[in-house]
C-alpha cells in the first residue's frame, strides 16, 4: 500500500465514525520504512530492513471519548477499529473539556519545511554499511587504548503521516532521516570505558563525515579511562551540550499542560513570573526548515509555531494541546503529539535554549575547581518538586583546565536553583535532534562521591 493511498483511508475512517454515531472524529495514519546496518570489529553484524504502518482513531460522542488502533488497514481491519472506538466511548465519563480544535485553529504551514529528502530512499546498502565501517575503523585506529568496540551503525528512516478530522482538516507529510554512530571501548589496566558519538540529518549529505564521528567517539572513550571518585563537595558544574539537552527534557516535563493543570510541576501557576536567570530564553519552534522537531501541523491538525516558553528568565507560555488548553482556559500552542494509540498528549518541537556569547573554552577557563559533566545516568529528576539527583560521569576541572576523569558520583540540586543559578551559557548551540542546548554552567551543585 503506497503512501498516496492513505489519505483516502483516513477520510473513510472519519466517514464511518460519523455514520456510527460519532459527533466528532479524527484519524491518524503513519507509515514507515526502516533500515539499519551495524558493524562490529570491521565485520557486518546485522542488517535490518522493513516497512510497517498503522492507523488510530479517536471519536467523540458528545463529551465522551473513545479510541482504538490497528496495524491491519484492510477494509475489515478499519471497520473493526472504528466500531471498537465507538464502543469505548460508552465506557468513558463525560468530560466537559473533551473536544477537537475549533475549525479556525486548524491548518498547516505552507512553507517547505524540508523534512523529506529523496537521497535517503535511493542510498545503496553497500554505501550505508561502508559508512558504519569507516566510522568504527576510525575509532579503532584513533588510539592504541581503543581495544574493542560495540560497533558502528547506520540507520535510515522514511516515514509519513496522514491526519484528518471531522471538522474539515486533511493533511499529510513525509519525512526522512539518517544517522551514523560509533561506540568504541577503551581499556587501560583494570579500567574499561565506552562512549559514543553520532550524527543525524534529514539527508545523507547532511551527515558529519564518518571518520570524524569515529574519532570523536574514540576521543571521548579514551578520556574516561582511569576515572576516580571525588570527595563530596559543592562546586560549579558545566554541562556539555549533549547532557545540557537532558536538562531541557526535564524542563519540558515541567511546562507541558498536563503537568500544569494537575499541579504536578514546580512551575505550575508561575506564568508571568521570573523563574530563571535573565540570560535564559527557552523556545519551542516547529517551523524551522530541516530540523528534527519541525512539522507542518501537530497531531490534532493545528499548525506549528514558535512559542517562547521562558523569555529572559520570565515564564511566558505553557506548551499545550487542545484539551489542556481548554482545561486552563487558554488556546492550544500546537503541541499535540501522539502515536497511533490513545489520545493526543503533548510533545515539543525544536525545544532549545538560546545561545550565549562565550565559547565553551572561555567558560572552562573561568572555573577554578569544578566538574565538567559528559554523561548522566538514571532518572532521579522529580519535576513535581524540582528535586534533581543523577549519576554523572565527566572530567574534573582544576584552574580552568580539564584535569582528570571522574565517575561513580552523583550531582544534585533543584531545578529551581539550577534555573536561577545559571552562571554561563555557551555560544555552541547545535541542533542535533529536536532538543538542543549549548554548554551550560551552573554556579553550584552538590557532587556526591566518597
Amino acid at each position, binding site marked *: 500500500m503506497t503512501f498516496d493511498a492513505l489519505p483516502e483511508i483516513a477520510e473513510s475512517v472519519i466517514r464511518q465514525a460519523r455514520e456510527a454515531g460519532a459527533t466528532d472524529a479524527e484519524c491518524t495514519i503513519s507509515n514507515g520504512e526502516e533500515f539499519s546496518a551495524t558493524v562490529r570489529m570491521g565485520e557486518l553484524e546485522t542488517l535490518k530492513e522493513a516497512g510497517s504502518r498503522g492507523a488510530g482513531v479517536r471519536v467523540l460522542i458528545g463529551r465522551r471519548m473513545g479510541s482504538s488502533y490497528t*496495524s491491519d488497514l484492510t477494509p475489515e481491519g478499519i471497520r473493526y477499529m472504528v466500531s471498537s472506538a465507538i464502543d469505548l466511548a460508552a465506557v468513558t465519563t463525560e468530560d466537559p473539556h473533551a473536544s477537537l480544535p475549533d475549525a479556525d485553529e486548524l491548518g498547516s504551514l505552507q512553507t517547505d519545511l524540508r523534512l523529506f529528502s529523496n537521497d535517503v530512499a535511493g542510498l545503496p546498502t553497500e554505501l550505508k554499511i561502508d559508512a558504519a565501517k569507516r566510522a568504527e575503523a576510525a575509532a579503532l585506529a584513533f588510539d592504541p587504548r581503543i581495544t574493542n568496540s560495540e560497533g558502528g551503525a547506520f540507520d535510515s528512516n522514511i516515514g509519513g503521516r496522514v491526519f484528518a478530522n471531522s471538522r474539515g482538516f486533511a493533511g499529510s507529510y513525509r519525512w526522512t532521516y539518517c544517522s551514523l554512530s560509533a561506540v568504541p571501548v577503551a581499556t587501560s589496566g583494570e579500567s574499561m570505558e565506552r562512549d559514543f558519538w553520532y550524527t543525524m540529518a534529514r539527508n545523507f549529505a547532511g551527515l558529519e563525515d564518518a571518520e570524524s564521528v569515529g574519532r570523536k567517539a574514540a576521543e571521548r572513550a579514551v578520556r574516561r579511562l582511569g576515572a576516580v571518585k571525588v570527595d563530596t563537595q559543592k562546586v560549579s558544574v558545566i554541562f556539555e551540550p549533549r547532557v545540557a539537552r537532558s536538562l531541557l527534557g526535564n524542563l519540558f516535563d515541567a511546562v507541558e499542560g498536563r503537568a500544569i493543570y494537575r499541579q504536578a510541576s514546580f512551575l505550575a501557576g508561575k506564568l508571568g513570573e521570573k523563574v530563571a536567570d535573565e540570560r535564559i530564553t527557552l523556545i519551542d519552534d516547529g517551523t524551522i526548515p530541516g530540523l528534527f522537531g519541525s512539522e507542518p501541523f501537530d497531531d490534532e491538525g493545528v499548525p506549528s509555531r514558535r512559542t517562547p516558553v521562558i523569555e529572559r528568565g520570565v515564564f511566558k507560555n505553557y506548551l499545550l494541546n487542545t484539551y489542556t488548553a481548554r482545561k486552563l482556559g487558554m488556546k492550544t500552542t500546537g503541541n499535540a503529539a501522539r502515536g497511533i494509540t490513545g489520545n493526543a498528549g503533548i510533545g515539543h518541537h525544536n525545544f532549545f535554549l538560546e545561545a550565549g556569547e562565550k565559547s565553551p573554552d572561555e567558560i572552562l577557563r573561568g572555573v577554578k575547581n569544578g566538574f565538567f559533566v559528559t554523561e548522566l545516568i538514571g532518572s532521579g529528576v522529580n519535576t513535581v518538586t524540582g528535586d534533581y539527583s543523577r549519576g554523572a560521569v565527566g572530567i574534573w576541572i582544576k584552574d580552568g583546565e580539564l584535569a582528570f576523569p571522574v565517575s561513580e558520583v552523583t550531582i544534585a540540586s533543584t531545578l529551581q536553583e539550577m534555573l536561577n543559578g545559571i552562571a554561563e551559557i555557551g555560544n555552541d548551540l547545535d541542533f542535533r535532534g529536536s532538543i538542543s542546548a549549548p554548554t551550560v554552567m551552573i554556579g553550584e551543585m552538590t557532587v556526591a562521591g566518597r
Partner: protein
Amino acid sequence: MSFSDSFFAVKFGITRRDLENYLGDALSRGGDYADLYFEYLATSSISIDESIVKSATQGVSLGVGVRVIAGERTGYAYSDDLSPEKIRHAAQVAAMIAAGPAKVEKTPLEEGQKRNLYPVLTAPNETGFKERVELAQRADRAARGYDSRIFQVQVTYADNLRQVLVATSDGVLNYDRQPLARMSVLALAKEADGVPQQGHAGGGGRYELEWFQKERPPEYFATEAARQAIVQLGAADAPAGEQIVVLGPGWPGVLLHEAVGHGLEADFNRKGVSAFSGRIGQQVASPLCTIIDDGTIGGRRGSLNVDDEGNQTQRNVLIENGVLRGYLQDNLSSRILGATPTGSGRRESYEHIPMPRMTNTFMLAGESDPEEIIRSVPRGLYCANFAGGQVDITSGNFVFSASESYLIENGKLTRPVKNATLIGNGPEAMKHVSMVGNDLKLDEGIGVCGKEGQSVPVGVGIPTVRIDRMTVGGTA
C-alpha cells in the same frame, strides 16, 4: 492442543508446510540458522484522571519477523501483513545477509514440550470493559479517601494478550498465549500551602482479572501510592556521600537488575564489553549473595512458557555464594560461545531482533532477621522503594533512584528523606553486602526493562539487605 489447533493455524490458516517453506526462503542464500516469530498483540488501556475516565483505548497489531544468522551476522526483516507473498518477501530480504548456495538439509519441525505457567482461561483483555473501568474507579476512590491531603490521583489500567508462534530451522516449533495486566496509581499530596509530593504504586502479572479482586484489589495499590505521597510531605534532605545502605525487600531488587543482571547478558560478554566479561568462576559478590534469574515462576510478569526464540524458560543461577556462575544466553550468543541457550532470548515485538534479557531476577533469602539488620546500623539510609535505575555495563557503574527512604540513626528508622540517587559499581558494590535477610519478596509486577530501544516486562526481588558502602547522591 497441537499445532493445527493453535491460534495462528486457526485464525490465519498457517500450516507446517508454510513455515517450512518460509524457512527455506530464509536460507535460500545459505546461512546457518533462520527463525520466524509470528505475533498477534491485542491491547487495551483505561486511564482515570480527576476522577474522570478520560481515556479508553484498544487495538491490535500483528506481524511476523524473519531472522537469518550466518556466522556472527544477522539479517532481519518483518512484515505486518501475513499474506504468503509478503512473508516470503521478508524472508528473502533477511536472507541477503548470507551469500552462498541455499542450505538444503532441513530439520522437520517438532512441537516443543508444553507447560503452562499462566493457566488463564479468560485473559483480562477478553473481558468486558465495564469491569475493568470499575476496578480503576475503585482505585481512584481509595486513593482520594486515604487522606484529605491527597488532591490528584491518576489511575492507569492496561492489559494485553499476546499470541506468539516461533518456528526455527533447528526444528523448533512452539506457540504460546501470553496474557498480561497491570494497574498503576499515582497520587499527589499537598499541605495547605506546601509543595506537592507524589507517590506511586502498582502491580499485576499474567493472571485472570479476578486477581485484581482477590489477591491485589485496587485499594491495595491506591492506599500504597497515597501513603507514599503523604510520607514524602514530611521528608527531609537526604545525606550526601558514602553511607551504609539497607534495602527493604521486594522492588529494591532493581539493584540486582542494574548492578548484576545486565552485565551478565551474554551478548555483552561474548563481545568482551561488560565489566563482568571473563569473570566466570570468580568471586564478584559477597558469599552471602546467590542471584537467580527465573522465567518459570507461575503468573509472574517476567515469566514466559517459552522465550521469543521458542526455547523453554528456566531457572538460571547467575551468582552462587558470591561466585559468578553463568550468563544469560540467547540463540546467537550461545551458538558463538558454544553454550546452551538459557531461555533468555526476548524481543519487544515482531519488529525487533531478539537479545539476551532478564526475566525475574532476585537474590535468595539469607538468615538475618530484617529487624536485626536495621538495628545493626549506627547511621545510614533505609530504602523502601525505588523509581528505577540504569547501568553502564562497560564501566559497571549503575544508579537507582530511591522514591521512599528513611534515615537510620542508632539502629532505628527516624525520619523520611527526599528522593535521592544511589550510585555504585556492579562487581564492587555486591562485595559490600554484609547481611541478607530471611524475608525474600518479589516485586508487585510493574517492571519494564529497556535495552537498545526494546522494552520488555520483567520482575525483580530481594530480601532485606545491608550494603556497607554505597554513594548516596543527597539532595540540594
